[in-house]
């Protein structure tokens, strides 16, 4: 037995009402759609109930719709309970008609009767039952009323079957349906596999999945398809509109007709406040202006204010870091124990992401407000006209905002959000371009490069990189949908325009928290796994023995120099050479204990604690007496030497590591884009998590500072001049760079295909390399400066965007019919 219904019809409450707590959640085989099943007993017999995904229709446009349809088609439930929102019956009947068409016994469940009553809507359940020839049962799922009647109806229907099968009359199309129905049913083996009338209608609708089904089961599929095409063409010339639109219109008309006959609406329908608001919000000119203002507010609050909040919250994550630091084995002078270095690396990778939580929390909360208020579908409606031109969909708006249309987003929630896009082609296109937006983690690298190489044009350079990404993403999306995604299903823009609501604080908070939790759960686990792998790649193989001995010698020299100072003071004999490391760590601990403390009394208490723990060390660290002062200066020298040695060792080890070797191996290829092997390494580590790019470049190559370490200076001196043109190529590559590993895994989850994940990594890498090469090599050949190349490229991208927008896309055009501009209709097709 299966439970079907449109979203927001109270399907879950009906499910719970019937099955109680006895339910089992799994995924439908091969897809990420959740499959919930439960048991209940009807008239003493056990019944298994499967909750189908909420869908508006039963086409094959979206994953949910396909899952629901396949279940009905292949698992052949004995009966279907169709949950419908009684207060919104006209829309809900659209699904009901299609369920009847599939030839399964249907119980129509009029749920939310209380809401309908409150609004003064009367539904004639008995009349509907006679009309459909199938049971119709009113319930109030929230209160659990009507459950026994529903169970009884289900049991009776499963035994006896419907009184008669209800069928939609397609008028002039009927002879065509009958002809194809006969063709399809001609083969006895195929006839049993699916309802022939349903398949005939689906074939006339040009449903791709139906064609596949036919090809699999029918021995003469090709001839049947040919006939279908011919009939479709004939109908279109005769009736003046395509068969699929005729079918959709007939269903809509019938819904409206049934609604008029069996539903009474209070008084004359007056223009609601929502309708009035829509005349502004969806207005041709005011609409986009309001949209821009709302997006601007979204950006200011989540990114600018959220960034400030993130800074205030940082001490929490910082203390998490120092807490773990305390649990792990103590640090060494040069090398730390593996457990410590790996542990700290992992914790830091996680806190780097947790730092963004306030931003995402605000973003998710604001989006929940937009959704609950009913603005989100209107925004999608307004932008659909623009996005269609690029093979995207109105509902691509949210993923692109989350990804960082301007600056500051994250590809992970962006890819997650594509789930809502019903159009398979646009959904994949959105998944593939969302990582090209400017995620938060790309920004540090932009900032470093801009302040180093475009300092005089910093504002314009930031504007350039922030907006050029959109002008690269849009043409790319169009190109993808014209090529690799050509054969994918495309859907018309169908979206319910619910009345405006005032969002409740509780609802918004709950949804924001749910999403944050989902985000944290998915990401933190992935980040931990990735951090461990990257750690191995950048730390092994270790330095050669000769180098390690050299470092050890320099360490010993520093310790010896310090001991020589000790012997000149009264500390002679109280500090041994093996105490030096402990003394250095003592100083470090004391400093981190006082980190963030701004009150002298508390600082004194901390000092006293350390003084008690080790009076000798404390005397040196806090400069007690003449000897303490003298030795403190020597200690500073040791500390600085240690930091320098550790930094240099890290850089040297990185270069010799697996990742470093890979960076060198790629140099012959990347030199045309202006990347030397050092930049290759930074980019490779950025693939693990974008944050790494700046950290790596900063720590190893000293691009972000004057550089102090001898190794860095040597490297910079040995490097041929890094020009603004190099920097520009690097920034553009970073913008187009493949999604980081956590985002790639999200792509894998949303597309349910490793091939798409690899494709998204591969095409973005190649595209990034191609663009960087074009800018760098092209700019050098033409003798352009960095700034000139920047604007030349910008012009190129804008031209490509306009050009791509003008290439017509047949399906998209054909399907966006005259109804698209009628949001109040409820459904625009």
């Amino acid at each position, binding site marked *: 037995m299966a439970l079907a219904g449109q979203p927001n019809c109270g399907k879950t409450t009906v499910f719970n009402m019937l099955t109680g707590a006895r339910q089992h959640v799994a995924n439908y085989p091969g897809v990420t759609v959740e499959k919930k099943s439960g048991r209940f007993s009807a008239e003493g017999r056990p019944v298994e109930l499967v909750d189908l995904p909420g869908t508006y229709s039963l086409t094959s446009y979206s994953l949910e719709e396909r899952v629901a349809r396949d279940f009905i088609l292949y698992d052949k439930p004995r009966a279907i309970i169709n949950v419908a929102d009684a207060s919104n019956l006209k829309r809900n009947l659209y699904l009901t008609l299609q369920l009847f068409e599939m030839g399964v016994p249907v119980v129509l469940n009029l749920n939310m009767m209380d809401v309908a009553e409150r609004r003064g809507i009367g539904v004639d359940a008995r009349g509907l039952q006679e009309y459909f020839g199938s049971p119709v049962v009113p319930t109030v799922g929230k209160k659990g009323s009507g459950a026994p009647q529903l169970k009884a109806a289900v049991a009776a229907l499963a035994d006896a079957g419907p009184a008669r099968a209800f069928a939609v009359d397609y008028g002039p199309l009927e002879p065509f349906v009958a002809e194809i129905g006969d063709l399809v049913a001609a083969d006895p083996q195929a006839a049993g596999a699916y309802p022939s009338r349903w398949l005939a209608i689906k074939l006339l609708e040009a449903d791709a999945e139906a064609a596949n089904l036919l090809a699999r089961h029918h021995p003469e599929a090709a001839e049947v398809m040919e006939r279908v095409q011919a009939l479709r063409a004939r109908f279109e010339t005769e009736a003046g509109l395509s068969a699929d639109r005729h079918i959709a219109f007939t269903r809509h008309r019938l819904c409206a007709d049934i609604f008029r006959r069996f539903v009474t609406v209070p008084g004359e329908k007056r223009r609601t406040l929502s309708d009035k608001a829509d005349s502004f919000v969806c207005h041709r000119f005011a609409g986009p202006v309001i949209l821009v203002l709302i997006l601007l507010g979204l950006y200011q609050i989540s990114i600018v204010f959220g960034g400030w909040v993130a800074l205030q919250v940082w001490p929490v994550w910082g203390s998490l870091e120092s807490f773990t630091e305390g649990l792990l084995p103590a640090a060494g002078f040069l090398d730390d124990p593996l457990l410590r270095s790996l542990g700290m690396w992992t914790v830091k990778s996680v806190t780097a992401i947790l730092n963004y939580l306030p931003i995402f929390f605000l973003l998710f909360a604001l989006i929940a407000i937009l959704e609950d208020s009913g603005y989100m579908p209107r925004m999608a409606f307004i932008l659909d006209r623009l996005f269609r031109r690029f093979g995207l969909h109105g509902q691509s708006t949210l993923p692109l905002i989350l990804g960082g249309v301007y600056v500051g987003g994250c590809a992970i929630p962006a890819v997650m959000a594509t789930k809502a896009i019903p159009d398979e082609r646009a959904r994949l296109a959105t998944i593939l371009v969302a990582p090209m937006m400017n995620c938060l983690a790309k920004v540090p690298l932009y900032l470093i490069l801009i302040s180093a190489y475009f300092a005089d044009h910093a504002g314009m350079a930031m504007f350039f990189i922030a907006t050029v990404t959109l002008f690269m993403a849009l043409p790319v999306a169009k190109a993808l949908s014209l090529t690799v995604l050509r054969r994918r299903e495309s859907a018309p823009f169908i979206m319910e325009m619910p009345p405006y609501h005032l969002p409740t604080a509780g609802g918004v908070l709950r949804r924001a928290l749910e999403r944050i939790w989902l985000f944290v759960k998915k990401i933190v686990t992935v980040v931990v796994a990735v951090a461990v792998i990257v750690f191995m790649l950048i730390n092994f193989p270790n330095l050669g023995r000769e180098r390690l001995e050299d470092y050890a010698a320099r360490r010993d020299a520093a310790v010896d120099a310090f001991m020589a100072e000790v012997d000149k003071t009264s500390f002679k004999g109280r500090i041994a050479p093996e105490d030096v490391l402990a003394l250095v760590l003592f100083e470090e601990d004391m400093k981190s204990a006082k980190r963030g403390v*701004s009150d002298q009394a508390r*600082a004194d208490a901390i000092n006293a604690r350390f003084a008690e723990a080790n009076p000798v060390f404390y005397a040196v660290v806090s400069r007690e007496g003449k000897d303490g002062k003298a030795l403190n200066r020597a200690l500073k020298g040791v500390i600085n030497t240690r930091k320098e040695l550790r930094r240099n060792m890290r850089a040297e080890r990185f270069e010799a590591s697996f990742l470093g070797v890979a960076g060198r191996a790629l140099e012959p290829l990347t030199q045309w884009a202006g990347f030397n092997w050092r930049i290759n390494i930074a980019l490779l580590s950025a693939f693990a998590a974008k944050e790494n790019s700046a950290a790596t470049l900063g720590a190893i190559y000293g691009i972000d*500072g004057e550089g*102090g370490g001898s190794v860095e200076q040597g490297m910079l001196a040995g490097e041929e001049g890094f020009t603004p043109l190099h920097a520009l190529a690097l920034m553009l590559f970073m913008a187009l760079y493949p999604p980081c590993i956590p985002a790639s895994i999200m792509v894998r989850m949303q597309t349910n295909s490793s091939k798409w994940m690899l494709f998204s990594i591969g095409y973005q890498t190649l595209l990034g390399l191609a663009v960087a090469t074009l800018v760098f090599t092209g700019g050098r050949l033409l003798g352009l400066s960095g700034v000139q190349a920047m604007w030349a490229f910008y012009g190129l991208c804008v031209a490509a965007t306009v050009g791509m927008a003008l290439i017509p896309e047949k399906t998209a055009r054909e399907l966006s019919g005259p109804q698209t501009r009628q949001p109040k209709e409820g459904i625009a097709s």
Partner: protein
Amino acid sequence: MKFVKHLLLLVAFCLVSSLAVAHSPLCDCFDNGDGTITCEGGFSDGSSASGVGMTVKDGAGAVLQEGKMDANSEFSFPKPEGDYSVTFDAGEGHQVVIKGENIVQ
């Protein structure tokens, strides 16, 4: 043309927006007890703050001293008399200001 209008709107939206905050800047200052102050900088994602500009100002806002974070992401300066503040400036949206009275020994 409608499409161009939409495009222009998108561009306008981008123009008005300001620069985003990405990783959070971090800076802590300590009184060394010898008449000098040492500040340590960094970023929440572990990036080095080496080369970041540092400014020390007196209570009236006059610049007393300017410098940059060294290779160890540290910056030391003589402790000024009276009120003062230290600014860690890693670009717009990446500034930290610490008041002298909050710097303890």
